[in-house]
């Protein structure tokens, strides 16, 4: 949908449309990369540099995030052959991508550097497993962890489940409604040659898969994969010389949180998540609202995380998320498709960055599906969304990414198609 005509896109305060994502890249999504996070990080970044049509030495800022399971910017910068004027390695997983784009804009606006690469590199299956099995599960239990890990309350699913369960209690949300998140994202993944899981699943498949931790079945949980992803952010002035239509950054909210961050369950309603607070920054900063968004990347570490965020950011009324995600709105061809690459549930797990990459490609109108490539080097999209077909959203202009760390903390970003 075009932006509202009265949107003031020039307000310096908000830096709307002044910075853009100009390059995106990733490794393959695998289980068993047989590579270090260092090798994968520089691989993804080289792909992003080639995608942007710049030289490695054009990058003079670098940001990345990890849970002590990755490689610092210092090594990646060396391996791609550039000298940095700014870098920062951050601790964190989901919700980091959008927040770091915000920091990238801040440091460029402050004159600290001119072109920032952001990466996430992880062997989330073959080294430090995202689900918490292996090394993470064996770590000694000290001090504050006695109040959670000593109770077998450790993995993301275990940690978030009281939120999901209480949502079902508060609003009557049904398992078969929530399962539709997986169904729809798997349909989209079947049109994504890169996706780790390309199979289309049904509601029955989800409900008949084994219970991991109520209310989560195996197929309510994302995939664990090895991969690296990278994006390049720079000013719109610099973007003019680059290869692709830039994805202009309209507005960001970063790691916005609920009260009682020491233990967020102390403050309710616990079925409400960080988006409840974050929306009040995201939409005014972006100058748009949920109704203006053509496609969403709603962080799907679990089926529930997508649904909860859609509610709290205002895509539907609070408590009506189950109805919303099972209405067809979120499908390719629907009013507001989401996680068009298949997301974390199917494409691969990269702590949010792959959903930003997908929206950048969507906004270029050049998403990498199986449609034939035309003489101009761009895909000739058919908009036939049947299995193995197209996944380009028609005439897409504005996207939102809703990043999730946990029920307490989230980040989000609105982008629009540049000229």
């Amino acid at each position, binding site marked *: 949908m075009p932006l509202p005509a009265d949107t003031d896109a020039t307000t310096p305060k908000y830096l709307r449309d002044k910075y853009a994502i100009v390059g995106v890249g990733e490794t393959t999504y695998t289980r068993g990369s047989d590579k270090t996070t260092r090798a994968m990080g520089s691989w993804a970044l080289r792909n992003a540099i080639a995608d942007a049509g710049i030289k490695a030495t054009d990058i003079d800022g670098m940001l990345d995030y990890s849970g002590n399971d990755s490689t610092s910017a210092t090594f990646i910068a060396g391996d791609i052959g550039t000298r940095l004027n700014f870098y920062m390695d951050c601790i964190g997983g989901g919700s980091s991508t959008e927040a770091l784009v915000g920091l990238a804009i801040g440091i460029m606006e402050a004159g600290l550097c001119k072109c920032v690469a952001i990466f996430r590199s992880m062997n989330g299956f073959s080294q430090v497993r995202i*689900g*918490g*099995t292996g090394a993470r*599960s*064996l770590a*000694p*239990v*000290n*001090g*504050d962890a*006695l*109040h*959670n*890990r*000593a*109770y*077998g*309350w*450790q*993995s993301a699913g*275990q940690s978030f*489940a*009281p*939120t999901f*369960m*209480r949502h*079902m*209690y508060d609003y009557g949300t*049904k*398992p078969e409604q929530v399962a539709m998140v997986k169904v729809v994202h798997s349909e989209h993944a079947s049109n994504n040659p890169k996706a780790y899981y390309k199979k289309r699943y049904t509601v029955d498949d989800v*409900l008949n898969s*084994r*219970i*991991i*931790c*109520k*209310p989560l079945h195996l197929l309510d949980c994302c995939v664990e994969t090895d991969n690296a992803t990278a994006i390049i952010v720079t000013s719109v002035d610099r973007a003019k010389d680059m290869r692709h239509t830039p994805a202009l950054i309209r507005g960001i909210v970063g790691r916005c949180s609920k*009260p*009682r961050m*020491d*233990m967020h*369950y*102390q*403050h*309710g*309603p*616990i079925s409400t998540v960080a988006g409840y607070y974050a929306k009040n920054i995201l939409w005014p900063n972006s100058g748009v609202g949920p109704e203006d968004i053509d496609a969403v990347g709603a962080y799907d570490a679990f089926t529930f995380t997508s649904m909860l965020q859609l509610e709290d950011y205002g895509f539907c009324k609070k408590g009506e998320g189950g109805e919303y995600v099972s209405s067809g709105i979120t499908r390719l061809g629907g009013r507001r498709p989401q996680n068009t690459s298949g997301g974390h549930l199917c494409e691969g797990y990269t702590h949010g960055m792959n959903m930003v990459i997908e929206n950048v490609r969507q906004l270029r109108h050049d998403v990498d599906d199986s449609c034939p490539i035309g003489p101009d080097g761009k895909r000739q999209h058919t908009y036939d969304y049947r299995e193995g077909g197209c996944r380009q959203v028609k005439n897409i202009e504005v996207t939102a990414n809703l990043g999730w760390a946990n029920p307490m903390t989230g980040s989000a970003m609105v982008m629009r198609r540049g000229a």
Partner: protein
Amino acid sequence: MPVRGEYLGMALTIDDLDGENVTYFKHCSEHNFHLQKCDECALVRYPPTSGCPWCSSPKSTWVPVEGKGEVHSYNEVHHAIQPAFKAVTPYMLLLVDLDTQKGQPSEHEALRVAGNLMTPDGKFAPPEMVKKIGIGSRLRMVFSDVSPGLSIPNWTIDEDAKQPEKPWRYPQE
């Protein structure tokens, strides 16, 4: 000397300098549940912290708190992640709203105390007991002894309380 213990095969440690947790678990080891009460605003808080989440005062006094309440939410783990818990699945992780200070200082707040569902004598609840418990169930605290100076608060059915006719449970058993 740090407080150490082994619980279900997990090594638990509280460092000497972690005064709040040392005191919290020392009371638990005597099978008393104590929480910090703010010396300024008089609100009680959970879990232990170094300052008041409502008024930021660093000053507090440990006070006894009744270990009784109602299940606010839960999860039921069928596929354990930590090796320690694989032998006790399905196990329940409970968030229990204590009766003390429920709805204060705002309607959505409560002392929401975590713990596993146990039998009255402190063993992990068997599957048939797990199936009886849901949102709204009335529970009382029991302690699992780990080592001298270290016991962990957990939950069991409050036999003396009036239980809801049908506590809310996830629809798929």
